[in-house]
C-alpha cells in the first residue's frame, strides 16, 4: 500500500462522503459546506494526479469564489431546515432513485468492462515510458498546460474571456433592482 494509494482511498472516501452529504443534508447550508469539502477533496485529487496548478485553480475558483457565492446566497435567504427537501411523488421518486442506481451501476460497469488497461497508451511505447518517467518525477506540468492553453487553445481561451464578460454584464443586469426582468417592488 503505497502513499499514493492511501491518499487516493482517503480522498475518495472524503469526496464521496461529502458528495453524498451534499445531496442528503436537508439543510442547504450544510449541503453547500459539504460541497466545499468535496471541492477541496477534488483539488487534492488533482494534486495526486500531478495537476497542481489545476488544484490551485480549483481552490481559488470553486471554493474561493463560486461556493462563497452559494453560501452567501443561502445565508441571505436564511432558509434553515427544509420541511420537504426531496421531491414528492412515490412513483417518479422510485423511478428516479432506481434510475440513479442503475446509472451508477452502468457507469461503473461500462468503465470497468471497457477500459481494461490502466493506461490508454500501449504498453512499451515510447510515450508510455515518458508517462512513467513523469509520474515518477512528480513534476509539475503547469508549463505544458500553459503552452497548450495559450498556443493551441488560445481561441477557446479568448472566447471564454468574452463569455465571462457577457456573463458578468448579464448578472449585473439581472440583479439590478430597477428594470431587469421584473417590475420594481
Amino acid at each position, binding site marked *: 500500500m*503505497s502513499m499514493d*494509494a492511501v491518499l487516493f482511498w482517503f480522498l*475518495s472516501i472524503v*469526496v464521496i462522503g461529502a*458528495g453524498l452529504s*451534499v*445531496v442528503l443534508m436537508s439543510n442547504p447550508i450544510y449541503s*453547500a459546506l459539504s*460541497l466545499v469539502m*468535496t471541492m477541496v477533496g*477534488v483539488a487534492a*485529487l*488533482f494534486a495526486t*494526479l500531478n*495537476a497542481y496548478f*489545476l488544484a490551485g*485553480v480549483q481552490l481559488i*475558483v*470553486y471554493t474561493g469564489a*463560486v461556493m462563497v*457565492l452559494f453560501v452567501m*446566497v*443561502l445565508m441571505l*435567504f436564511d432558509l434553515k431546515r*427544509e420541511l*420537504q*427537501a*426531496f*421531491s414528492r411523488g412515490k412513483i417518479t421518486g422510485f423511478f428516479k*432513485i432506481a434510475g*440513479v442506481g442503475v*446509472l*451508477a451501476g452502468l*457507469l*461503473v460497469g461500462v*468503465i*470497468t468492462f471497457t*477500459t481494461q488497461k*490502466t*493506461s*490508454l497508451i500501449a504498453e512499451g511505447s515510447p*510515450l508510455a515510458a*515518458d508517462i512513467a518517467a*513523469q*509520474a515518477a518525477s512528480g513534476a509539475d506540468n503547469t508549463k*505544458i*498546460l500553459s503552452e*497548450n492553453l495559450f498556443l*493551441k487553445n488560445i481561441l*477557446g481561451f479568448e472566447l471564454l474571456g468574452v*463569455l*465571462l464578460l457577457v*456573463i*458578468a454584464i*448579464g448578472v449585473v443586469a*439581472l*440583479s439590478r433592482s430597477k428594470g431587469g*426582468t*421584473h417590475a420594481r*417592488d
Partner: protein
Amino acid sequence: MLETSMFSEIGLNHYLVLSALLFTIGMAGILLRRNLIVVLMSIELMLNAVNISFVAFSKYNMNSEGQVMVFFVMTIAAAEAAVGLAIIVSIFKRFKEVNIRFFEHLKG
C-alpha cells in the same frame, strides 16, 4: 477484476469509477432535491466529477488537453453558477421561493 492489487495500485479506472460515482450522486441531487440552489450545487458536483475524469485521462494519456478542458469547464461552471444564482436571487426577491416546482410557473 477483483485482485488484491486493486487496492494498492491506483490506475485510471479508479479515478474513473470515483468520477462516475460522484457524477451519479450529483445526478441524484438534481433528480431528487427540491431546493433550486441545491440542484445548482449538484450540477457543480457533476462538473467536478467530470473534471476528475479529465485530469485522470490527462495524466494517464500524457496529454495536457484534458487539463485545458478542465480549465474551460471550471470557467463555464463559474459563469453558470453566477447566472444561475442571479436568476434565483431575482426570483427569490420577488416570490420568496426557491422550490424547483414553483419554477414551473415560469414556463409561460
